[in-house]
């Protein structure tokens, strides 16, 4: 295994670490590496690093490794970890912040997931609400898996669960403005 040169890594990670600390409001040093978060995380089985290991990377300032991990994308935001952490570390919030920063830096390990969220928000911005059929179709087309979940389509339409037309709110100006205002304040949407 490659040896990490810690002093250099620490210096290099400072800027991003400061961002994470500021935006998440979580001081990584609080974590005492007990692993209770990972032990209860329902998605840990699929992760490349356990949530505790993400906290460790952040503690040591190894930010590139944290930002490039699949873990931060696989996290389901279920809050199990934050609920049980004995040191009151809001790990779910750290995951969230790391995702936001990864996106900002363009180092996204799970491109497809990221695509989905973009489409989702586009749908919200355009229609005020999410158009599920449009979203799923769009996602599957952009995501190069046109037939995924297609078998649900017909029965969903029949059951009145999917509407072929988007639900929109009459005057979507307000929602569009919210997006615009967030962008004005530096939000990268």
């Amino acid at each position, binding site marked *: 295994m490659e040896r990490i040169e810690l002093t250099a890594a620490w210096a290099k990670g400072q800027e991003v670490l400061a961002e994470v600390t500021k935006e998440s409001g979580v001081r990584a040093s609080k974590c005492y590496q007990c692993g*209770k978060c990972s032990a*209860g995380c329902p998605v*840990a089985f699929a992760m490349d*690093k356990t949530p505790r290991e993400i906290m460790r990377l952040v503690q040591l300032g190894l930010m590139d490794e944290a930002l490039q991990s699949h873990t931060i994308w696989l996290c389901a935001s279920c809050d199990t970890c934050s609920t049980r952490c004995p040191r009151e570390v809001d790990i779910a919030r750290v995951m969230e912040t790391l995702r936001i920063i990864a996106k900002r830096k363009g180092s996204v390990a799970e491109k497809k997931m990221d695509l989905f969220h973009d489409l989702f928000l586009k749908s919200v911005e355009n229609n005020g609400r999410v158009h599920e059929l449009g979203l799923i179709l769009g996602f599957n087309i952009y995501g190069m898996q046109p037939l995924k979940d297609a078998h649900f389509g017909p029965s969903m339409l029949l059951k009145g669960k999917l509407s072929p037309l988007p639900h929109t709110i009459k005057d979507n100006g307000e929602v569009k403005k919210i997006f615009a205002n967030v962008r004005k304040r530096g939000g990268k949407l």
Partner: protein
Amino acid sequence: MKRVGVFICHCGTNISAAVDCEKVAENAKSFPGVAYSTDYKYMCAEPGQELIKKAIKEQKLDRIVVASCSPRMHEPTFRRCIESGGLNAYLLEMANIREHCSWVHPDDKERATIKATDLVKMAVAKVMQNEALVRSTIPITKRALVIGGGIAGIQAALDIANTGHIVDVVEKEPSIGGRMAQVDKTFPTLDCSACILTPKMVDVANHPNVNLITYSEIEKVEGYVGNFDVTIRKKARSVDLKACTGCGTCIQKCPTKVPSEFEMEMMDRKAIYTPFPQAIPNKPVIDRENCRYFKSGKCGVCQKVCPTNAVDFTQEDELVTERYGAIVVATGFDLFDESVYGEYGYGKYKDVITGLHFERLLNASGPTMGKIKRPSDGKIPQNVVFIKCVGSRDEAKGKAYCSKTCCMYTAKHATLVREKIKDSNAYVFYMDVRTPGKGYDEFYTRTTDQYGAKYIRGRVSKIYEKGDKLIVWGEDTLLGRPVEIEADMVVLATAMVAKADAAKLAQMVGFSYDQNHFYTEAHPKLAPVETHTAGVFLAGACQGPKDIPESVAQASAAAVKVCGLLSKEEMPTEPIISAVNEAICSGCGMCVPVCPYTAIDLKVIQERIHGKTVSRKVANVNSGLCQGCGACTVACRSAALNLKHFTNEQILAEVDALCL
């Protein structure tokens, strides 16, 4: 006319190398009040002291300034010196011209001399206002009180009694013994707890100097060091201790069963009971809340069968007041209420238990006769999981501190699982293994090396039942992988916490406790058994999590402190204390909460004003409690409080002397 004598010391060359001592002595002659001033090579040496004594006599000096080393070094010396020269010891002031002057300014003799002159000037100004103070004495009641009859209380009582002093031990429960009585074997040697505790319990019970007052609680504490007046409530036992022979017939015949607290409710006891077989006193008590006679007036079987007529339903609580010279508090600990861990299902899953439950399962006279069996179905567990730091080191749900004993007792439990159950597995989830102590780490190492317990570094996140198994989810943080164990039983090493009524007792006796309600020692390193309240000492786990060796050591230390106090007939009191000028005290009470020793209260005085008697409130300083910090003097807006020897006037005189 006040006549001050000033004595400047050279300390060989320690002072004179940097300070022109003759010049300082010369300068001092011009200070107001100075009648005599001189310098000498070694003031503290025999001839130096003689010089002072002679000058007192010949120059008719009535107060003295010695300018030399730090008063922290020689103030007692010179106080004794002027006392033997015929002056009151408190008519001395010292100017520190060595540590605070010559040694720190070796290269600037001119300014060091100016500074030394200033310091002497300040001391002279102060000593002009000094008053003779007398050390008074208070008599000491030669009887000690120990509150709590666990191992710490027992040890303290024995040590005090062995020096010939009388000790009363007040124990809340029907028997002494405390938690140690519930523990089966003790680390690090694995000797049987009862085998080492029972003899001590018997010794303390039979000691001619010890009075055991069991099933009793402290009701009120008044007074202070040397003379505490303590009111004790002796709860109605419903059994006459003198008449009862402890034959146990009543217990056998009593029809009422109640879950036994001692057995962690895994076994029943009767309504008339002794908590455990080796209880001391080994005589029963009636639990009135559950006894049929007290609930419905019917039954009375125990009374009928008692051959000595010892059962007495009419007994009432009795209040007795006794005076003690010193108090040892040894009230021990409780266990953390782990039911806050919903994710561990404590209380929901029968086979998730605490370490203390496990001790009872190990014990030959416990609910399973010493066979480790599951509480749910009595099966012998093959896979036992231990979880450490439950409630400890957990700010979110428990306590931030480490409970100190659980790493060791969990190692003990894991060892015993492997020893007692063939082909069993003991898994221990831990965050750290903390085993500082003689033989402790070796014990832990044996647990893994010799007994093959499997230690997994990580905290458990969830336990749930699946069929008759308990599924335990953890992370092996050393591997970085989530792990799962199918367990038959889970033992939680729950935190040691302060007794529920710890704060109440501390307030009653009058000493302080920390945010976790453990009692606060006077100094964490150098006064670990004293409290801030003179005459009150601490022993055992009431001061913080502790194992048996530490509790015993602390108990013996507290006993020495008590004996030191009781070995004297009377106690000198320091005269540097606060005093109230009742004439100008407005009775506002601002000073009362400021005093860290609760030495001030308000009293009512009668006065005759214009021929009429009026009563009003004024502050009153308890000279036994005041330690002379002076905080109250600053709180008083009327300047009615003043600290003797450091009066407002004295300090202002020093300030003026320096500035003008």
